């Protein structure tokens, strides 16, 4: 692989990770917390209506997890392509 091909392949894998994680980002916040809120509110975990919980708690926990997952994935990817120097 030339340097250019390598850079291209790396970028492609990175974009794939980003798209998958951004999809989850959208689902938990705009999906569960806003668009589907009313439907989810018919379910309850303890005192929380589920849609309300996603909007005021759950989405934020998922955001944190998403970033750390990305950090891990990218550290591995950097190693794989030798970009971790």
């Amino acid at each position, binding site marked *: 692989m030339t340097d250019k091909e390598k850079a291209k392949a790396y970028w492609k894998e990175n974009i794939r990770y980003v798209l998958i994680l951004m999809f989850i980002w959208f689902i938990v916040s705009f999906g569960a*917390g806003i*668009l589907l809120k009313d439907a989810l509110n018919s379910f309850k975990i303890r005192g929380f209506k589920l849609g*309300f919980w996603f909007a*005021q*708690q759950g989405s934020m926990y998922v955001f944190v997890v998403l*970033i750390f997952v990305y*950090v891990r994935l*990218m550290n591995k990817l*950097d190693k794989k392509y030798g970009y971790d*120097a």
Partner: protein
Amino acid sequence: MVMMHSLLAEGIGVQNWTYILVGITFTLYIGIAIWSRAGSTKEFYVAGGGVSPLANGMATAADWMSAASFISMAGIISFAGYDGAVYLMGWTGGYVLLALLLAPYLRKFGKFTVPDFIGDRYYSNTARFVGVICALLVSFTYVAGQMRGVGLVFSRFLEVDINTGVIVGMLIVLFYAVLGGMKGITYTQVAQYCVLIFAFMVPAIFISIQMTGNPIPQLGFGSTLADGSGTYLLDKLDGLSTDLGFAEYTEGSKSMVDVFAITLALMVGTAGLPHVIVRFFTVKRVKDARKSAGIALLLIVILYTTAPAVAVFARTNMIETVSNKSYAEVPVWFKKWETTGLITFTDKNNDGHIQYVADKSKNELVVDNDIMVLANPEIANLPDWVIALVAAGALAAALSTAAGLLLVISASVSHDLIKKIINPNISEKNELAAARLSAVVAVCVAGYFGINPPGFVAATVALAFGLAAASFFPAIILGIFYKKMNKEGAIAGMVVGITAMLLYMVKYRLGWFDDVLPDKSEWWFGISPEGFGTIAMLLNFIVSIVIMRFTPDPPQEVQDIVENIRIPSGAGDATH
């Protein structure tokens, strides 16, 4: 010995506790500033570029959480109920965008400021200049609110004049921002994060135990009440709210499209705020930029997931303490806050009781948002030192954000304007002097607005996000992910985006174009000015891409730079 004895007997008192805690924390900040003062422009702008991801994460969190997050947010949520989620999701979700789409690439690019990136990526001093204007506009609207927050805390807790409070705050910020630059600010912010998070969590934990028996507020507000009734706290609050004629707490009253638009505008705005982005220029490697975004968000989310719990505790407590109670028998805190004008009671039906209801013609009680956090410990009868701690925490939040913003302003002037546009031959020493001087000027301007707040400041702080979303976010994203994006497209996009946002804000929030403020029903697509950043951002993207199609491609060396920033290795030091 006698004095000790009387002190112990009477307790130290809220005010003395406040002097003690504020005194200790201020001494700490000044001490750190002296220890970490900046000797070069690189230290002044990006703290020398060697900040560890943990320290940078803490500093980012303190920088980010302003007086608005600390004092106002829980209060706003407690009145808005479900709708408050726009701030919670909006002000945290932006960090996902930062970590995945911006921070790593901007760090690799290796510049000092956001306009620096715009100017170099779009090979144009016009673009740089537009960037400087946007950065100044966003930062000034934001910083005035912080100074006001400092003044408010001083006046309430230390019973000094609000203007004296602003001036004391100005002197402190001036001291460590001018002396230490980014380096001083970074390490004071680390200390300020610790102070503010401790100050926010302690009362929250106390109250959670009181009301639900659960020491973790995030779980507490979904638990049953501690009174043994078996009722869930949220069900009870929903019931109380509807009894008084308000919308159900967990339902809210904004339209779905507006909730969607505001949340997106705040997320994108967060990712486009220069004082947040610039923090990622201070770490050593690209992987550190990603990691510190994660740490920053984790530290922010600790406060942000607690705030909605505090909102529920405070709202329930307040309704139970005052609703339909005799005015003659209200607790001391009520009278105390009445004197500040943040609580007002008018006995409309002259029955001597407080009617707190949704119907405006019958409602007798007006409570300012900000009280919910500031008075919460008093409402819940917590010890004096906890009440004083809240004051120290609020000051830490306001000062850390103000300092971060002032640095952006001073760097925009001394680096982007003077060094890059007006006088490229300026020496390092003179540039550093110019940076310090512009910080002094910026503090004075911010202080002026803090003392004489123009009516529009409060209304525009939330809109700073709209401005950032409408200008920087698309230009940076396209600059990284779209190699062919050229200067013509980016400049046109930024100008159109920020102009659209300003016009909509002036028309529908300030009402300057009409005799009366236009009604909600006239909003485009039902979207409020706070949410219009989303539309302005889309407009920016569309204009940029259309103009780009009809104008020449960027030079090959610029396209090569874009390919280069996509690869994390070999991130050198930030350079001129």
